[in-house]
C-alpha cells in the first residue's frame, strides 16, 4: 500500500468517527444548533437599543392652547408615552420611583413668555442613570421640540429660520434598527462558540476518556489527526453559520446587501481561525473543565465584548483598542456588518480578510509546532 493511500484511509477513518460521534452526542448538537437559535432569539428580540414609548412625565402648570399643542407633539410621537402630572413635585417623585424616565415641565408663565419675550424655557429633567438611553431620549425630545417649533411658527404665519438647519441622511440602515447590526455580528459569536469552544471540549473529552492514548499509538500522523478533527467540525460550524444567516435574513428581516458567496468565503476563513484556536486550546487543556474555562475566557468573551459586535471599538480606551487587534472576531464582525448592510465594499472585506488569513496562518503554524503525538 502506498503512503498516500494509507494517509487517506486514516483520514477517512477519523472523519467518519468524528461525524458519527457528533450525530450521537446530544451536547454537540446542542452547542452547534440549539445554542445559536437561543442566542439569536435572545439577541434578536431581547436586546434592543431602540428606545420606544419612553415613559415621560408632562407637567403643565397652566393649561392653555400653546401648552396643549406642545403636549400634542409628544403624544403623537411613537417614542414617548407621556403621563400628565399636576405638580413638578409629583413628577419628580415619579422620576425617583422610576415610574418615568424623564420630565417635561411647562411652567405657569410658559405662554406669557412665549408670546412676550420669545424666550420661554421648557424644563427637561432626565434620569441620567442609563446614560445611553438618556442621550437617546434627549435626542428624541429635541426632535419633538423642533417639530413643535415648526408647527408653532407656521400656525402663526411665520417661517422658522434657524441659522443652520441640519438635514440628515443615514446610509445602510436608515431606520437605525439596532437589530440590523446586532444580528449579523452574532454570527461571529456563534461561529466562535462552535469552532473554538466545541472543538476544545471534544478534544479534551478524548483525553479524559483515555481514547487519545489508543489513537496516538496507531500509525496516524499528527497532521492527519488534526485534520480528521477539523473537517467534521468545519462542516458543523458552517452549518451553524448558514442557520444563523437564514434566521437573520428571514426571521429578523435583516437585509443581505452584499454577495452571499463573499459571505461564504470570508466565513470559511473565520471558521478556520476559530477551529485553529479550539485545537490550540486543546493542546494545552486536557480536561473539559479547563478547556471550557479557557475557551470562554479567551475566545467567547472577547468575541462578545471586544469585537465591535455591541460596543463601538473606536470609543474604547487606547490600550483596550490595541488588544482588540488580536481578537479575530473583530475582523469578522466588521466584514459581517459591511456585507449585510452596506454590500461588497472591497477595501473593508479585503483588509479584514487579510488580517484573518494572517491569524489563521499563525495559529496553524503554532499548532504544527506544539502538537505532538506524545502524552507529555
Amino acid at each position, binding site marked *: 500500500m502506498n503512503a498516500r493511500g494509507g494517509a487517506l484511509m486514516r483520514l477517512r477513518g477519523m472523519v467518519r468517527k468524528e461525524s458519527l460521534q457528533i450525530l450521537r452526542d446530544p451536547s454537540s448538537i446542542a452547542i452547534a444548533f440549539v445554542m445559536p437559535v437561543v442566542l439569536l432569539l435572545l439577541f434578536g428580540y431581547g436586546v434592543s437599543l431602540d428606545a420606544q414609548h419612553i415613559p415621560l412625565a408632562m407637567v403643565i402648570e397652566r393649561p392653555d392652547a400653546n401648552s396643549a399643542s406642545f403636549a400634542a407633539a409628544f403624544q403623537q410621537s411613537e417614542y414617548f408615552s407621556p403621563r400628565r402630572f399636576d405638580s413638578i413635585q409629583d413628577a419628580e417623585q415619579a422620576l425617583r420611583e422610576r415610574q418615568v424616565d424623564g420630565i417635561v415641565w411647562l411652567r405657569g408663565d410658559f405662554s406669557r413668555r412665549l408670546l412676550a419675550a420669545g424666550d420661554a424655557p421648557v424644563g427637561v429633567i432626565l434620569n441620567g442613570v442609563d446614560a445611553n438611553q438618556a442621550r437617546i431620549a434627549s435626542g428624541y425630545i429635541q426632535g419633538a421640540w423642533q417639530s413643535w417649533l415648526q408647527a408653532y411658527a407656521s400656525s402663526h404665519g411665520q417661517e422658522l429660520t434657524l441659522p443652520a438647519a441640519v438635514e440628515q441622511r*443615514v446610509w445602510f*440602515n436608515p431606520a437605525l434598527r439596532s437589530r440590523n447590526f446586532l444580528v449579523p455580528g452574532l454570527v461571529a459569536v456563534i461561529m466562535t462558540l462552535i469552532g473554538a469552544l466545541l472543538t476544545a471540549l471534544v478534544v479534551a473529552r478524548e483525553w479524559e476518556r483515555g481514547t487519545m492514548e489508543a489513537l496516538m499509538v496507531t500509525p496516524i500522523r499528527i497532521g492527519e489527526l488534526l485534520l480528521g478533527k477539523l473537517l467534521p467540525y468545519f462542516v458543523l460550524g458552517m452549518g451553524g453559520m448558514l442557520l444563523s444567516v437564514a434566521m437573520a435574513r428571514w426571521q429578523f428581516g435583516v437585509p443581505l446587501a452584499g454577495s452571499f458567496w463573499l459571505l461564504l468565503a470570508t466565513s470559511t476563513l473565520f471558521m478556520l481561525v476559530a477551529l485553529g484556536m479550539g485545537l490550540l486550546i486543546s493542546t494545552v487543556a486536557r480536561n473539559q473543565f479547563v478547556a471550557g474555562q479557557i475557551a470562554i475566557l479567551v475566545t467567547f468573551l472577547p468575541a462578545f465584548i471586544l469585537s465591535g459586535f455591541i460596543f463601538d471599538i473606536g470609543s474604547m480606551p487606547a490600550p483596550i483598542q490595541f488588544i482588540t487587534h488580536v481578537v479575530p472576531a473583530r475582523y469578522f464582525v466588521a466584514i459581517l456588518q459591511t456585507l449585510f448592510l452596506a454590500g461588497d465594499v472591497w477595501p473593508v472585506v479585503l483588509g479584514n480578510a487579510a488580517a484573518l488569513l494572517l491569524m489563521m496562518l499563525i495559529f496553524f503554524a503554532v499548532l504544527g509546532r506544539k502538537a505532538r503525538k506524545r502524552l507529555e
Partner: protein
Amino acid sequence: MLQHILALALKELLALLRDKRSRFVLIGPPIAQLLVFGFAATFDLQNASIAIYDQDQGAAARELIARFEGSRNFEVVARIDHDAQVAPLIDDRQALLVLRIDPRFSQEILSGGSGSVQVILDGRNSNTAMLALNYTRGIVTDFNDTWAARHGRSGPPAHLEIRPWYNANLESRWFVVPGIVGLLTLVVTLIVTALSVAREREAGTFDQLLVTPLRPVEILIGKSIPGLLIGLLQGSLIVAIAVHGFGIPLRGSVGALYLGMALFLLSAVGVGLMISSLAVTQQQGLLGAFLFMVPAIILSGFATPIANMPEAVQWLTYINPLRYFLIVLRGVFLQGDSYALLMDQYWPMALIGLVSLILAGWLFRHRMY
C-alpha cells in the same frame, strides 16, 4: 445542628480555597470581566471619525467647523472637496459621518435665512450613528444660539433646558460599573454553588456525606454559606473598586445596598443549588450555570433597557433576580435611594430566593442517586 453546619461550611470553604483551579475561577474571570466591562463596555462616543466637505468656505461655515474640531466627541479625519469622495469614505469605514456644508451656507445665513448642513452617516452600527447624530445636533444648536444672540436675530420662541439627574455628564461608565457588581456576584456565586454538589458527586464524596448522620437540610445550608460569603466578599471588593477605582459616587445608604446584595445572593445561591442538585457531572453543572447566566444577564437590563424588549420578554424578566438587584445597585449608587424606595425590588428577590431554595432542597432529596 449548628456544629454540623459550621463543620460543613468550613469544609466547603477549605475545599474551595485549597484548590488551585477553583481559586483561579474565583479570581481570574471576575478581574478580567471587571476590566473589560469597566473599560470596554461603553456606549459613549469618543473621537468619532468625521470628514468635512466644506463647499462654502465662508466665515460662518468655518465657525461651525471649528466647533466640530473642538469637540472631544469628534475627530476630523479628512477634508474633501468633491462628491465622489463621500461614498468611499463611508463605505470603507474611514469616516463615521460626513458633514457637508452647502455652497450657499454663509450667504443664506448672513442674509437672515437658513443655511443648510447635510450630515451623511454610516448606519451600520445604529447606536453609534444615533449618538453621532445627537452630538451633531447639539453642536449645531449651540452654534445657532450663539449666532442668533450675536447677530440680534430672534431665536426660537422657546428653548429647552435639559438637565440630566443623577449623572450630570451622562457617563455610561457610571451606569455600567455598578451593574458589574451584580453581574460578577452572580457569576461567582453561581459557579461556586452550581459545581459544589456535582464536584462531590464526581469525586464520590457525596455518598460519603450522605451516609453520615448529616441531614439534607444541614447539607444544603452548609453548602449555601460559602456561596453567600464569597459572593458578599467579592461584591464588597467590586463596590470598593467601583467607588475608589472608577470614581462612581455612592450616594445612598450602604445598608440598603447590602440588604439588596444579601437577598440577591440568597436567590443566586438558590438557583445555583438547584442546578447543582440536577447536575451529575461538573460539566453539566457548568453548562447549566452557563445556560442560566447568559439569558439572566442579557434580560436583566445590564446593557440594554428592559423597556425596549417585546412585552412577552419583559414578562420573562420578572423571574430574573438580577433585574431587581441592578435596580437596587443603580438606585443606591446614583440615585441615593433608601430602603423605602427599593421595597418593590427587595421582596421579589426574597421570594425568588425562598422558592428556589425550597426547590433545591426538594430536588436534593429526590435526586440523591
